């Protein structure tokens, strides 16, 4: 899988946000704020193909956390990103 190359993180008033433009013809857009874990995964994994294990390794390298907890965080992150079309296979 990989992070969609169009995904762009912008800093707004101290938060790291992602804007997702709504469908053509509407003015709706979704805004998501990335927490520090989501931001780290984005920064380390953008621009390359990766597997779940690669993402888990990013968290294990950075944080004092055990493998099951890191895996759970990654699974949640991937699910959320896929739901928003930000991770593609």
């Amino acid at each position, binding site marked *: 899988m990989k992070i969609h190359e169009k995904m762009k993180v912008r800093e*707004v*008033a*101290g938060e790291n946000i992602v804007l997702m433009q709504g469908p053509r013809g509407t003015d709706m857009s979704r805004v998501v704020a990335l927490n520090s874990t989501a931001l780290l995964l984005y920064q380390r994994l953008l621009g390359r193909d990766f597997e779940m294990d690669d993402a888990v390794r990013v968290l294990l390298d950075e944080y004092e956390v055990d493998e099951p907890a890191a895996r759970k965080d990654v699974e949640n992150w991937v699910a959320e990103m896929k739901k928003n079309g930000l991770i593609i296979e």
Partner: protein
Amino acid sequence: MTERLLSIGGLGMALSGGDTLRRAFMIEGMEVFLCQKPTPRDFEVRLDSAVGLPQFRQLYDFDFVDGLYRCRFGVDGEGVYYYDFGNAGWLRYDLREPDVVEISPVADLSVLRFVLWTAYAMAGLRRGAVPIHSSVVVCDGRAVMCLGESGTGKSTHTRLWCEHVEGSSLLNDDSPILRFGEDGIRVYGSPWSGKTPCFCTESYPVAGLLRLEQRPANSIRRLGVVEAFTALQPSCPPSMAREERLLDVLVAFISKIIEHVPVYRMGCLPDAGAARLSHDTIIG
């Protein structure tokens, strides 16, 4: 070719042209914004330009002047922006010449009014001045900008302030200019005031932004960063969200605003209690 200098949103907007320039001053309220004293020109709007309308990649289209016309917005191969106002005219804006906006001849006054608004929006953005769809009330020398979709009751809410909150007055009822400038964040009256002619050249510091929704009871809450962003962004010129470079500048602008100005969301009835609640919360 003649030239006239307007002061809008604290920026000197120089209009030049022939017939279309004359028509611009037939628009109600436009003359109010003519510079009374020497003012530096910040950008130029060249009306009756001979510039052509090439093919361009469409990014967005919408109706304007109450659905009478359809406008197409997009970019050409070099990244130059175009607005095609149907048979009524077009606008060209090139970021390589950021202080110039070119406009074809425009005969219809309603169209011209909208075209000039668009020209201001394009050139003003990178100078930190953005027209915001809102109704603005001023009290104790501070402004509150009421945001919300058309028909939600922004004008009703500001009218209720004027009726029930002493010392209140209307600054603009449709599209004031919000500006992040050397003297902080201020909101200015503009020639674009919708159905309520309120042509005011004054400006005031912004006490708060208030996004309104119709609800069966009055309640108000302060918003965090993400919600504040989503409260303000839909009230900014829609084409700015459709193209990457414009969006980058717009997001930086919104970021500055919400860092310094509180943003609230309010569910409300069209009654005096709503005006008093928002006044007491925002102005105090």
